[in-house]
């Protein structure tokens, strides 16, 4: 194993232990060997040292919603390129979605993803598996065998289960294996041909709208079923004020309910679409500013547990299209932290709350040992400068696709070093 690594003079924020101190972090044998305030008394003399003055040290981020193109669409993103993008964004674990070609609905495919990831990816890849065979919304997959193969959660990815009976069966069956169900609630019939948030803006642009009820009606259904079955249920991405109200209500009755939001929906609103900018075409759609503000409040209140990137690489062929015809989705691994820090710099959300939603909460929901800097935990660590100014440039994006909602955006806060299992997988070159 590598030499011990001593990170000194760092502001250490570990939401799992509610710790926020200036001190040292010692990594040995791939694990957190010690965390202490001030100077390290008994640090090994031969340790490599990182002077983290001015930096924040936190657990490596866990991104609960990452699409890659492997297998099937490797030109969009491979596990390897997603890994590099993640490392550059301080993300040490990615939950990969099953919407690949073929869909991840069989133990052998989970095994394939894990082996490919082991051989090529520099961060931890946690495969999720499909809830239904072929993501067709009909027949359940083999939850038990898939879990044994290494699937950590079950989800339909971009798709939403329309059939209530299938959702009930999935949640009920998942309880046998204590497996989390992650779901994007969207009433496909109500959303219809909609391509952006319904309202005056969509009307003015001549685009069909998706009403907020297309999210809240199936979310209400899911939450009722979660109580009925006792399942671990995570709403993948919520976007409306009413969704927060529903979550507040149902969470009183079950600690096994949780919800996520993409950083896009925390930072942006429907106005950002401007003149048909397809990089801002997302699912769920960017909503009204009132909804965004409600989402920020819900995050602060803990009603929303997790911030994800919703990383969804799409090539120019499907993005450079008229708005209604363009594919949905945006990449986000490299800008997850910087995007979230916008809420810190605007004074809306404190650092610990933001980091909690990207470290310990995802770890708890998925049942992981990471997401914390506790002694003995895997040494997944992110070092970032919260004030470092930079501009998102297409040329420097590590992802194989460049469909970012933050193109040319000014960011404050950059990941300087990313450590996975004690190994440095990313180091920012700030020479210029």
């Amino acid at each position, binding site marked *: 194993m590598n030499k011990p690594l001593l990170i000194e003079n760092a502001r250490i924020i570990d939401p799992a232990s509610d710790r926020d101190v200036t001190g040292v972090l010692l990594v040995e044998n791939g694990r957190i060997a010690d965390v202490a305030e001030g100077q390290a008394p008994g640090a090994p003399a031969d340790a490599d040292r990182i002077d983290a003055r001015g930096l924040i040290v936190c657990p490596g981020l866990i991104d609960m919603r990452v699409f890659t193109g492997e297998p099937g669409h490797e030109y969009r993103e491979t596990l390897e390129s997603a890994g590099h993008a993640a490392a550059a964004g301080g993300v040490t674990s990615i939950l990969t979605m099953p919407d690949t070609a073929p869909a991840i609905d069989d133990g052998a495919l989970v095994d394939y993803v894990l082996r490919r990831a082991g051989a090529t990816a520099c961060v931890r890849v946690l495969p999720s598996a499909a809830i239904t065979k072929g993501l067709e919304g009909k027949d359940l997959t083999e939850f038990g065998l898939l879990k044994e193969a290494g699937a950590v959660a079950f989800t339909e990815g971009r798709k939403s289960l329309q059939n209530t009976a299938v959702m009930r069966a999935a949640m009920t069956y998942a309880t046998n294996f204590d497996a989390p169900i992650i779901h994007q609630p969207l009433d496909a019939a109500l959303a219809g041909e909609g391509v952006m948030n*319904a*309202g*005056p*803006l*969509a*009307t*003015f*642009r*001549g*685009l*069909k*709208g998706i*009403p907020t009820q297309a999210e809240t009606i199936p979310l209400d259904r899911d939450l009722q079923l979660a109580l009925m079955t006792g399942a671990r249920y995570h709403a993948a991405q919520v976007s409306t004020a009413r969704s927060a109200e529903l979550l507040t209500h149902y969470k009183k009755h079950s600690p096994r309910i949780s919800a996520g939001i993409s950083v896009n929906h925390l930072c942006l609103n429907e106005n950002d679409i401007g*003149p*048909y900018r397809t990089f801002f075409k997302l699912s769920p759609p960017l909503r009204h500013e009132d909804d965004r503000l409600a989402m920020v409040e819900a995050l602060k209140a803990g009603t929303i547990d997790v911030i994800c990137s919703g990383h969804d690489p799409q090539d120019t*062929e499907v993005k*450079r*299209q*008229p*708005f*209604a*015809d363009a594919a949905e989705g945006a990449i986000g691994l490299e800008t997850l932290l910087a995007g979230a820090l916008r809420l810190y710099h605007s004074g809306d959300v404190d650092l610990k709350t933001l980091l909690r939603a990207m470290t310990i909460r995802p770890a708890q929901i998925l049942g992981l040992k990471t997401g914390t800097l506790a002694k003995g935990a895997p040494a997944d660590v992110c070092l970032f400068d919260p004030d470092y100014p930079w501009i998102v440039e297409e040329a420097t994006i590590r992802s194989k696709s460049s469909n970012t909602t933050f193109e040319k955006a000014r960011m404050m806060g950059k990941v300087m070093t990313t450590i996975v299992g004690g190994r440095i997988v990313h180091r920012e070159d700030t020479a210029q």
Partner: protein
Amino acid sequence: MARPAPDTSNTPSGPFQPFRHRHLLGIAQLNPVEIVDLLDRAEAMIPVSRQRKTLPNLAGKTQINLFFENSTRTQASFEIAGKRLGATVMNMAVRTSSVAKGETLIDTAATLNAMQPDAIVVRHGSSGAVELLSQKVECAVLNAGDGAHEHPTQALLDALTIRRHLGRLNGLTVAICGDIANSRVARSNLILLGAMQARTRVIAPQNLLPAGVDQMASEVFTDMREGLKGVDVVMMLRLQNERASGKLVPSTREFYRFYGLDAEKLAYARPGALVMHPGPMNRGVEIDPAIADGAQSVITEQVEMGVAVRMAVLDALLNREGNA
């Protein structure tokens, strides 16, 4: 018989101010001065068009009509407009071209751009498609209708028709009736009439009113008689048959009963109010044939004004240094 157009004695003859825009993508990009300028230019083109003369304004220039949606009328109107100004006009039959083979809009734009046209007239079924195409070519792009977004030359020809009959646009009350949700004609007209200080009303069953339409129109009605009270102009919109088969509206006969323009409903409008329709009409669905061809109808004149407006817009875009 349709009402004859009055002779306008004070036909504007320029000089007109140079056109500020590279493309005409929508009415939303125009300010009221530019709208009036385009209407004046169109007014000046009417005698040319009426006497079947040609002008040399676009001699040596190439205009491509790129229609991704079928439209005999609009395409013919743009073709005649270009030819009356001396341009070489080429019609791209998109349905049988490479687009059907999966070529993207951007590829098509790049290919056409390489042929060095001076203007491309585009109609496309997706909102924003014409703007997207305009970003990829070096020549002028005219929007001949994109999805449910805009159809700027239609709004200009409607405005010209109204102005010739009623002498002005400001202070008039104009009702736009029918399938507002899916209509680019409605949007362009609402923007233009709003900019020109006219009062606008939209009248439709709630299912055909898009969310937030009250921010584009002065007033919103779901009752035809109430909405038509005292209006100066009644604009009817085409109702696509597929939308009146139970999805949004139960049937065409029910639609006609409550929202079709007949003599009884028209009687609520100001006496002599203009009746307009962008065509093609569904007689017996949104309008009574007797009204469509009646004394208050200016529908055929709209078609005639279409050529003049398109001549004016082509001239303004392709001779941007100004002309006398």
